[in-house]
């Protein structure tokens, strides 16, 4: 791995960006977990998608998947690299996208468009925008005009979870996606390839589940930032690299001492799409919270596992339809109030932090219902708004510290 002087193809001058070998073996060669985490941090902060640039250099193809959920197994089964897009973070200056999108919109939509308009998404051959909100949906329409030569697809994720017709509709929807991906250079769809991809992704999902369980049950072994970085790599690296990496990570985490200190066991709700900066994620636990469950990077946790055997496309669709996930971008299978109380109870949380992205309407509307239920049960909570481009957090620090103190020393 080396640092290369960066300049986006056709775009403005960029900060120095990372360079990797074609097969990304640098990740498996890191001598310690701490060094791997530092590398993950560098990758996350580099808006030029260095791992994707490296992987696609020998002619492989990548597909960008906007949050929150896309069937990445399907992308993988066509011989393409599914990559989770999470905006530009704090290192991308918005100079073109504002004019195209308008005001009053979330930063992730603007920074994602900005990356496209400054050629930093050049390694991608196709983009999938799931219908998780109106902005994500509309963004596909802009990409389709502004990115000639790449395929784009707006994936309609159903919101009627009671109809018998939903499953066949979603299967048909996935077939539409397959047609687009085949046009983007994907190999022809073969069920046995999808079955193999499902098995690989199931393995990754189990690993992520184990990681979050470790974080919940032994908070001292892993910080939220560490857990986040490892999961975030899972959406950037080929699964063939990330899965063995996580096997190694698990054994190293197990060997870590379980430090204990007075912390507030906290559920983190809201950042399921736009991601807070690493500094803000760090700050939450520095202030005295221990995050025992969170909504970050949902794509890995939409369901526990996908069934195998039978028609894999049906199995994949069924996993989405029957998922118990209860977040802002899925019509509530139960009452919102009941859902938040169940999650607090399952995680053994003492309080809740709502960390919602500025202008994220699905998250903002849920918070009101959640708060009412928490008020009834006298469960403490704090609501913070963030923007992926925020770099100063003094106000947030003060609020977090006050929140923790008010609960722990009440």
């Amino acid at each position: 791995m080396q640092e290369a002087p960066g300049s986006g193809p056709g775009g403005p001058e960029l900060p120095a960006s990372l360079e990797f070998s074609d097969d990304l073996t640098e990740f498996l060669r890191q001598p310690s977990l701490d060094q791997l985490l530092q590398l993950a941090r560098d990758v996350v902060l580099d808006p030029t998608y260095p791992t994707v640039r490296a992987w696609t250099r020998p002619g492989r193809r990548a597909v960008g998947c906007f949050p929150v959920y896309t069937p990445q197994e399907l992308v993988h089964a066509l011989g393409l690299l599914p990559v989770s897009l999470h905006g530009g973070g704090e290192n991308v200056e918005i100079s073109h996208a504002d004019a195209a999108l308008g005001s009053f919109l979330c930063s992730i939509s603007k920074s994602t468009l900005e990356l496209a308009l400054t050629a930093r998404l050049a390694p991608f051959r196709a983009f999938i925008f799931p219908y998780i909100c109106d902005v994500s949906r509309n963004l596909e329409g802009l990409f389709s005009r502004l990115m000639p030569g790449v395929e784009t697809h707006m994936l309609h994720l159903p919101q009627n979870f009671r109809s018998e017709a939903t499953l066949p509709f979603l299967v048909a929807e996935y077939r539409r996606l397959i047609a687009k991906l085949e046009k983007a250079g994907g190999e022809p769809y073969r069920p046995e390839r999808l079955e193999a991809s499902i098995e690989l992704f199931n393995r990754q999902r189990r690993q992520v589940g184990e990681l979050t369980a470790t974080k919940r049950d032994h908070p001292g072994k892993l910080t939220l930032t560490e857990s986040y970085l490892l999961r975030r790599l899972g959406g950037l690296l080929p699964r063939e690299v990330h899965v063995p990496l996580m096997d190694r990570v698990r054994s190293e985490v197990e060997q870590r001492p379980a430090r204990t200190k007075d912390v507030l066991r906290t559920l983190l709700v809201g950042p399921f799409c736009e991601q807070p900066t690493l500094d803000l994620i760090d700050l939450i636990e520095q202030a005295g919270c221990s995050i025992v469950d969170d909504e970050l990077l949902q794509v890995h946790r939409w369901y526990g596992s996908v069934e195998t055997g039978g028609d894999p496309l049906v199995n994949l669709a069924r996993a989405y339809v029957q998922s118990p996930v209860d977040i802002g971008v899925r019509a509530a299978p139960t009452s919102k109030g009941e859902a938040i109380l169940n999650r607090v109870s399952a995680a053994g949380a003492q309080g809740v932090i709502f960390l919602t992205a500025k202008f994220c309407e699905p998250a903002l509307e849920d918070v009101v219902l959640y708060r009412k239920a928490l008020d009834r049960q006298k469960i403490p909570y704090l609501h913070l708004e963030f923007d992926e481009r925020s770099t100063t957090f003094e106000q947030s620090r003060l609020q977090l510290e006050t929140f923790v103190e008010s609960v722990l020393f009440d």
Partner: protein
Amino acid sequence: MESTATHAPSFLNTAREQQRTMVEEYYADLAKAGGPKKPVAYMLVGGNLTEIVRSFGYEVVFPEIVALNCAIKHVSLPNILHAEAQGYGLDVCGYVKNDLGLQELGGETPFGRIPPPDLLVCSFSGCYVYVKWWEALAEKYGCPLFVLDVPYMREPEVQAEDRTYLIAQLKEFIALLERITGRSFDLGELRRVLVQSRRAEEGWVRYLASGRHRPSPIEAYFEAVFYMFPINVLRGTERAAEFYATVNTEVEQRIRSGQYPVPEEKVRLVVEGVPPYPSYRTFWDFFRKWGAVSVAATYPKVGGLFDQGFLHDPGRPFESIADYSLAAYVNQSWPLRRKLIADYVRDYQADAVLIHGIKSCRSFTAGQGDLRDWLIHDLHVPTLYLESDHEDPRYFAPAQIKNRMDAFFESLGPRREGGPPPTEGS
């Protein structure tokens, strides 16, 4: 070029009077509704199932229309502030805040009491906030919630799998209504209602198409908004069908007598976006002083693209309801929206496009800046983009909006006479 005339906007006299009476009677009936004798269903405008719901004896409330009525009567802000006090943030849709604030305050409006729902029907057609809004209502009232999941329109033609999915959901919805009400579904009655829907839709399409005349005998944005009420709220009744016959008779009378929406038509506009209801008349005045007339607009199609052939058909009741529900304007992808607007510019011989983006509605607004760019640079159509809100009066800055509009219309003059292109909005 600026006109010195400041006439009040002229409406179609009889039609306007009929419309006013229909609105008043509708709200008077609503105030008496609720409970088992006259249950109330809440529904959304886009892709609504009013014909089916009414055939089971429900009165229908459209909270979006209640919200716009509150805004235009300048009573939305107290409801919005009340919702904000409940925790709904500044960035939440104004319609949602108006409604949820109003619900908490007891439902009293200057035009009557809005009864609570017995049934919530969420036609998820082009607006994700619909889902969130109806979840909040379901949580508050604990009544049954049905989500009609309407696939997003990404191709110009209806796709078979989308139609199949919708028809299956419609039949499940009918089964739900039968269970709730204890009544049997009457297909013959639905067909009879759809005959009236079709008549109203054909009349509405004829009205909208009259904007092709030069000068235009209609104001296809500001005036048309008043005539949207029957097509969205009372569709399926004989009264709504008759209403559009009256409207079109008066439009023809306007053409014969030479009485047009402005004394001298100087600019023909296509308008994209939701009106700023709290400042509706002020905004309209900014057009009229320049002799600017909307000859076509996208907003009157939020309830359905009837003018693109998505009409109810009593001979194909379920298929046509399914197709109609796909055809809410904001359920169209950006490529389809762009084409529609370009077609309007060509077919209605428009001089320019005015885009009004609103803070509340990301569905309508996200991407309108790119639309402006495409119209100006690819189609060479002068275009102005403005921002305010459709519900919250705090976001309408009259001086700034007027200045930009004045500059835009001023610059259109020389262009129409072969001069340089406008600078404002480019």
